[in-house]
């Protein structure tokens, strides 16, 4: 009998090293070279290495589940690569924005490279859908922490494409997202990716930010519509017209007051939802089947996988029920927190929509910008920097 060894363990370190190098390269390309072309090259490399060569496993997007499971399950230890793939991109985002998304993530790279004609997503839809990644993140953590399943991996649309194999449903959804992605910039990144949600939060507080212009924004508005991912922000005064002030205040107060209610309602709904969610766990499911089939004669003849499973439960009824009860208990806790999280996410979104910001320039939103460097090309100052156009002498009399 032949027993070929698995991919050697040191490859974990190789993968982590490639990740670190790619992140460093991305930072250099975004901030020093300011080069879209360089980022395209990096994207192609990442797509080939992390995507088609490593088959999308291990990936940062799923790593949060490994961490969650390692925290709550004593029998499971997260592999080194999972920790590195989680921590490095987040650490970079805390200081310099979403460099990981710009050209290191194979999912992002794939969607970025196939974009042909970006259409603008209406603001209300964009804002509404942008809470989904946070909810998906919560669900991923819930099901990983309870040891149920890694839904983020199971429902990953692009990994089946990297592997050129997978469940029909997932292959189809991957293809559908790719077709959509030709006209809507990075649909998975913006409206689903749970790791993107973490990076977005980290990017929001980052020290360094992506800027359209290499030096001064002259408010020429040429970059206004340049971002295919809805990340460009226009200048705002931060002060509403005096007439609107009372109503804006009222709306903000309302949002602030309703948010705690949303959180409580979410927690309550979550607890109600617990038994249903727990059914996804194999142990709970088995216990249910066992109880439902109690007293019925054991099936004979060719046994289906379900019959065989039932047989296993019948041999060990006590163990089956105890295991199930333990998981159910965890789910009560988990779904309550998950429900509260959904309430918090919706409330926070609402509040953020009611806040006014002061912005003097056209600039990318720290959280939404994936640092693709597309908008740079629209800025005349950038073109001067590159020597594509020569600086124009300003006329002596500037009109105000």
């Amino acid at each position, binding site marked *: 009998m032949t027993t070929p060894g698995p991919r050697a363990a040191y490859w974990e370190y190789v993968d982590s090293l490639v990740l670190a190098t790619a992140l460093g390269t991305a930072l250099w390309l975004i901030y020093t070279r300011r080069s879209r072309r360089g980022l395209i090259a990096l994207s192609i490399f990442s797509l080939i290495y992390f995507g088609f060569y490593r088959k999308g496993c291990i990936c940062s997007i799923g790593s949060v589940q490994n961490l969650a499971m390692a925290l709550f399950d004593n029998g499971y230890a997260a*592999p080194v690569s999972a920790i590195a793939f989680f921590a490095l991109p987040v650490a970079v985002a805390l200081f310099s924005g979403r460099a990981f998304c710009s050209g290191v993530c194979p999912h992002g790279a794939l969607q970025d490279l196939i974009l042909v004609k970006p259409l603008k997503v209406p603001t209300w839809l964009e804002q509404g859908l942008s809470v989904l990644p946070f909810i998906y993140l919560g669900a991923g953590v819930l099901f990983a922490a309870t040891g149920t399943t890694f839904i983020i991996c199971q429902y990953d649309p692009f990994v089946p494409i990297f592997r050129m194999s997978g469940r029909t449903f997932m292959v189809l959804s991957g293809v559908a997202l790719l077709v959509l992605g030709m006209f809507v910039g990075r649909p998975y990144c913006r409206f689903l990716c749970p790791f993107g949600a973490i990076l977005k939060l980290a990017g929001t507080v980052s020290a360094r930010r992506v800027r359209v212009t290499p030096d001064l924004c002259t408010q020429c508005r040429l970059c206004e519509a340049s971002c295919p991912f809805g990340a460009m922000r226009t200048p705002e005064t931060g002060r509403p017209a005096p007439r609107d002030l009372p109503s804006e205040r009222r709306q903000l107060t309302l949002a602030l007051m309703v948010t705690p209610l949303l959180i409580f309602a979410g927690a309550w709904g979550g607890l109600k939802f617990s038994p249903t969610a727990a059914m996804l766990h194999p142990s709970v499911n088995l216990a249910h089947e066992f109880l439902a089939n109690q007293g019925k004669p054991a099936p004979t003849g060719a046994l289906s996988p379900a019959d065989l499973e039932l047989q296993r439960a019948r041999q060990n009824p006590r163990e089956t029920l105890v295991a199930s009860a333990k998981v159910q208990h965890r789910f009560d806790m988990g779904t309550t927190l998950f429900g509260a999280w959904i309430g918090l996410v919706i409330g926070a979104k609402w509040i953020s929509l009611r806040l006014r910001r002061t912005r003097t320039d056209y600039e990318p939103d720290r959280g939404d910008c994936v640092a693709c460097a597309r908008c740079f090309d629209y800025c005349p100052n950038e073109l001067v920097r590159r020597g594509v156009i020569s600086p124009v002498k300003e006329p002596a009399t500037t009109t105000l």
Partner: protein
Amino acid sequence: MSTGASSGGPVNRRHFLRQGARTAALAGGGVLLGLLVGRTSARGTVWQIDPQKCVRCGNCATSCVLKQSAVKCVHAFSMCGYCQLCTGYFEPAPNDLNTGAENCQCPTAAIRRTYVEDPYYEYTIDERLCIGCAKCVEGCNQFGNGSLFLQIRHDRCLNCNECAIAKVCAGDAFRRVPVNQPYLLKAISH
């Protein structure tokens, strides 16, 4: 027109808030990492089937993310009885004890039956053909010595973050094993 950082009050306040949040995130992340690194497996793990727990449900052939499953049948020759009537090889109540497909368990004819000496026959698995359906394993376990069993072949397995078969395995037989002991064999053999 401004470069951003040099303007007045709100910007500075926001700068400060941002820095505070960043520090908090770093501290939180540090604690989390400390907790995780303390119990990380420096070795790494791979998926494997515990042959003692496998109940031959057949999911291995159909649930792997690879179109031809990474699970295949392996044979512990040291446990094999070299039976003439191998219940892993032949259908129950075969018409004839020959290699005709209608007599065989294996749907892909992946088992080769060679004559050794009367009345012994050797059975070898052609791993290119095996799809891991566990039909032969069931036969061998019911009436034979149980020398045929399923294992994940690590030359094929992608070591998915979560094995797709593990979630549906009727025997709950899948588990993560250390990468330096990647097989759970029934017997040590060549």
